[in-house]
């Protein structure tokens, strides 16, 4: 297939492109105009063509879609206020979908998020799956969830109106190199001090390479058309287990003040009730003092990846231990097949590192950068 991948230079995007190359696809990778292409390992791979556009404006998108069989839409804004995220996530998607309709490209794999579920009203201990209720009052949620919910609506509308072939992938929290510490563990007080909330909740995680593989399987799969699929790894750790495993591999964890989950939630509920009753809901507290946000991150749930396994025939390749080992290595390897190799390399060929990325992008938790002649890859996810 010839695939257009937006957000290609981001944390997940660079792995999705690498996986697409490994699977023999031709990729048109959308990167932002100011992105330094030399920082991306696959920038000059023969299977990759770079397209420098910013999805927040319409110009250039239809050209980028020329001869494309399918689109993997990863680009989203993960930082900034609501309107910054709205522009990056929602308007970017609107412009992309409009262009797809214009040129008649109607196969889309859109990357949404686990953030869209109504964790506040889903009973504790329930299993979160694709048909779990979605948040019905987005204004009670953080900006990321708000914009992802609007994005999903746009995509469903696109599917319905234009009879488009859509797959929505909802990854759990994606971890990997430079993204090991997580808001599922607590709330940040200062740069190096966190409130660690709870210890026994199961963390909905997916390792970045596992997730990338599922996304490529989705774009290849006819069965995935018309489906919404959660992507989440097997054998999920509790918060405590995850921190223990991380501690074994790095010393540079932030300091933590542990807080009991029940106590924290009681405080949040009290503050919420006070806000509603006496402050007319006008007060804005930090996210961890909102029951909705707190439940999203720390409430005890179980998670199912049955649909991903059934439809995509996907099994997470990397266990948590392996993924953490890879993520904490001093150098990063992204294996992509050498251009002289067959399009579908054998497993042994896949291990060939002759065209591997070797970079000094050390996890932020480790303070020992190693000089490398090869530039770092940007981990910014916006394109």
């Amino acid at each position, binding site marked *: 297939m010839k695939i257009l991948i937006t957000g290609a230079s981001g944390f997940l995007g660079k792995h999705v492109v690498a996986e697409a190359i490994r699977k023999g696809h031709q990729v048109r990778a959308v990167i*932002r*105009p*100011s992105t330094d292409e030399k920082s991306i390992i696959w920038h000059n791979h023969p299977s990759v063509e770079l397209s420098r556009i*910013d999805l*927040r*404006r319409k110009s250039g998108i239809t050209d980028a879609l020329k001869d494309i069989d399918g689109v993997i839409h990863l680009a989203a804004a993960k930082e*900034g*206020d609501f*309107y*910054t995220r*709205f522009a990056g996530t*929602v*308007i970017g998607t*609107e412009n992309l979908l409009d262009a797809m309709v214009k040129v008649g490209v109607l196969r889309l794999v859109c990357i949404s998020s686990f953030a869209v579920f109504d964790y506040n009203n889903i009973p504790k201990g329930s299993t979160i799956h694709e048909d779990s209720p979605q948040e019905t009052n987005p*204004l009670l949620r953080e900006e990321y969830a708000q914009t992802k919910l*609007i994005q999903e609506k*746009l995509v469903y509308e696109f599917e319905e109106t234009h009879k488009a072939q859509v797959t929505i992938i909802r990854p759990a929290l994606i971890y990997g190199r430079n993204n090991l510490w997580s808001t599922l563990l607590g709330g940040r007080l200062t740069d190096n001090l966190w409130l660690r909330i709870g210890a026994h909740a199961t963390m909905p995680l997916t390792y970045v390479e596992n997730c990338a593989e599922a996304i490529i399987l989705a774009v290849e799969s006819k069965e995935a058309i018309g489906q919404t699929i959660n992507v989440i790894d097997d054998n999920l750790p509790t918060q405590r287990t995850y921190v223990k495993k991380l501690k074994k591999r790095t010393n540079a964890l932030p300091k933590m003040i542990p807080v009991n989950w029940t106590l924290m939630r009681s405080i949040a509920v009290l503050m919420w009730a006070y806000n509603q009753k006496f*402050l007319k809901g*006008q*007060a*804005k*507290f930090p996210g961890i003092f909102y029951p909705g946000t707190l439940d999203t991150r720390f409430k005890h749930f179980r998670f199912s990846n049955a649909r991903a396994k059934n439809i995509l025939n996907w099994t997470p390749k990397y266990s948590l231990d392996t993924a953490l080992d890879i993520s904490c290595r001093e150098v990063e390897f992204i294996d992509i097949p050498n251009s002289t190799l067959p399009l579908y390399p054998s497993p042994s060929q896949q291990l060939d590192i002759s065209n591997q990325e070797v970079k000094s992008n050390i996890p932020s938790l480790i303070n020992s950068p190693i000089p490398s002649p090869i530039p770092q890859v940007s981990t910014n996810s*916006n394109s």
Partner: protein
Amino acid sequence: MITLDKKPGINTEETPAFPNKIIKSAVIGAGAISKEHLSFLSKSENVDLVGVCDLSRIAAKYAQERFGAKGYFTDYQKMLEVAKPDIVHILTPANTHKKIASDCLKAGIHVFCEKPIAPTYDEFHELYNLAQSYQRHLIENQNYCFNKEILAIKKLVADGIIGEVQEVEVRLVAPIRNGGAFADENLPNPIHQMPAGVIHDFITHLCSLIVRFIPDFQTCNALWSNHGGGDLFKYDDLDAVVIGGSSHARIRFSCHTSPKCFSVIVRGSKGYVETDLFQPYLRCVIPRGGELLSPMINHFINGCNFIGATFSNFRNKIMQQTAYEGIYTLLDETYEALIHEQDLPISFEDMERTNKLINLLLLEAKKV
């Protein structure tokens, strides 16, 4: 003062402009600043929010649903025809204001426009003359002049507490180069196309505050710099001194100092008063209790005020009251004035003086 001629629909003797005291309002541009306007419009009893327009359909739709507008549009001309607003809030990028405002005025609709209303002084006059010829109101948003602290300073001046105004200093520090919309090279902000570049986004605030205390100037020295370099920013620093009669004003914009602040100091013949609109407080140093005790009493009173400001700023942060608080007072007074056919809170003179001062500063840039 220039006043509007009487005409049907605005100030006739037979029929009040808005007999049922409801004004049909619409908004063009659903970006970040629209939140402030729409928050007011959706709550005001004097407003019937008939439409929201944005080039992005989803942005217009979101704003319509979020703030309860009657309709949403992607073509403002269509909105003017279909929704028939009495007043339109123009919240689009600055380089589009003149065209959209002209079209609205020609359609017989009052205009409340975000700053800067026009790129140049001449274009401001052109627009204002158009408003006059169509007997419509044209209002530039100068919201910071309506923040509580500025209103308090104006009262101190009006009451003669600090004496005759001798000096005004307005200093705005904003990290425009540290990421964010202004530093975005992927989608350069349209404000970069304005004569003062990014500083044009702030200059109306700076100048509108100055002219509230010193209305006219004869001498101007302004240094426009691009200390950070690069092609994206035309200027990132302004240091200006302007003199009107014997009164001096200092206008300062910086992105190389920190923290963020919007400091206003007004010095009079008897004392001075200062505030920071981003972390509001009011420090007033005036003669209190004789020459000997005055410094001590001023310290004590201002110390208490500082402590009070700490708590009120904390409360404001929790209650989501931002430095934009003045816009709610301004809009409320504007709509009341429109309904009751009274003088608007921002007069032609306010806008004329502000844009004249901006012009003076820009002329200095051209000299370089």
